[in-house]
């Protein structure tokens, strides 16, 4: 069963990790974007990451996509701290130096659209760590994120250093699903006899 879908965006796509991607992951993790992030010593360690990505998605704790542009793997989109019941999660895009901000933004946007539709996610957080590219913050603003808090020394760098985390949030306008009895709020709930208009039917109305 697949829990992480392949999603297309202009110029590329995001797709789930597989055990055939160990070389790609190795390449990404040898050029870490996050301040203080250590490099794995053996490629086989990354097989655990693939396994982890499947388990995280299956249990709605996180999701990982590989980010491809023109057939080249240039990064990853990560979902973590996923509070599915609270309709919120945190995201980050980790990319190689050649990943453009345009593709980074498009990939992030595609993943957010999916999460909003599939899981009704309303509250998206993004943590920018002091030392990362400044243009990432511009990208977040372009997408509608707002800086809500600067967490001092919340990111550990090496054995004794720390960096600030700037936490951005985007609240989408999607209405929260309302809890109710069967048929209330025009919610089909588990009523399989109730017609649910398809996207095409909605558009033609």
């Amino acid at each position, binding site marked *: 069963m697949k829990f992480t879908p392949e999603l297309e965006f202009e110029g590329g796509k995001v797709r789930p990790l597989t055990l055939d991607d160990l070389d790609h992951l190795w390449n990404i993790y040898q050029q870490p974007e996050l301040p203080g992030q250590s490099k794995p010593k053996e490629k086989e360690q990354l097989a655990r990451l693939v396994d982890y990505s499947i388990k995280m998605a299956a249990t709605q704790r996180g999701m990982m996509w590989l980010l491809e542009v023109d057939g080249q793997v240039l990064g990853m989109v990560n979902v973590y701290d996923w509070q599915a019941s609270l309709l919120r999660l945190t995201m980050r895009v980790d990319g190689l130096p050649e990943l453009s901000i345009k593709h980074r933004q498009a990939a992030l946007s595609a993943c957010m659209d999916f999460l909003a539709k599939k899981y009704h996610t309303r509250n998206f957080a993004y943590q920018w760590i002091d030392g990362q590219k400044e243009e990432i913050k511009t990208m977040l603003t372009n997408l509608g994120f707002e800086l809500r808090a600067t*967490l001092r020394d*919340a990111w550990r760098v090496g054995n004794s250093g720390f960096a600030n985390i700037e936490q951005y949030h985007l609240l989408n306008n999607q209405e929260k699903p309302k809890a109710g009895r069967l048929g209330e709020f025009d919610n089909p709930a588990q009523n399989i006899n109730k017609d649910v208009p398809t996207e095409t039917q909605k558009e033609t109305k």
Partner: protein
Amino acid sequence: MNWNFIAGDYLLRLPVADSDRTILQTLLQVPEVSAHIPRLPMYFEAQVDDEFRQMVQRFDAREAAFWMVENSEDKLVARISIQHINWLQRSAYIQWELSDEIDLDGLSVVVSAIKDFCFKNLGLHRLEMRLRPDFQRHIQLLEALGFEYEGCLPEQLEFQNENIDLAVWSVLAK
């Protein structure tokens, strides 16, 4: 490591399941005590049982620690905890539930001892408190205790049909 210690006139000790049920419920059944977190008051025995189970499991997992704070008359005046301990990032959340019988002077002594314990004994670097932003008493206490305001995170949870924002305050090891 000894997790129980004395701070001025106060004893900070880990809870004991058999004997602390009633006194903890007496503190936590007052709605104002947990409203800043926010959390439902503890009205029923089943809630107390669940709370003790969670305190024990989370302490065993070294993910949290809960201290019962008693004054010189052996009366429970607060429960203070550290939670979400992140040993990698060397940070934790601190949370307090206070009775009216502990004032700023008393809390200063107690929180100072907890900070010392966390920063020196546990090797943590950052303690942060997340709470509803509109609780002036707690904000005044945080400011007086040297915590700094870092911002307010929107819609962190839903409580009684209301989306709850949480303000973040923190104190760092020097």
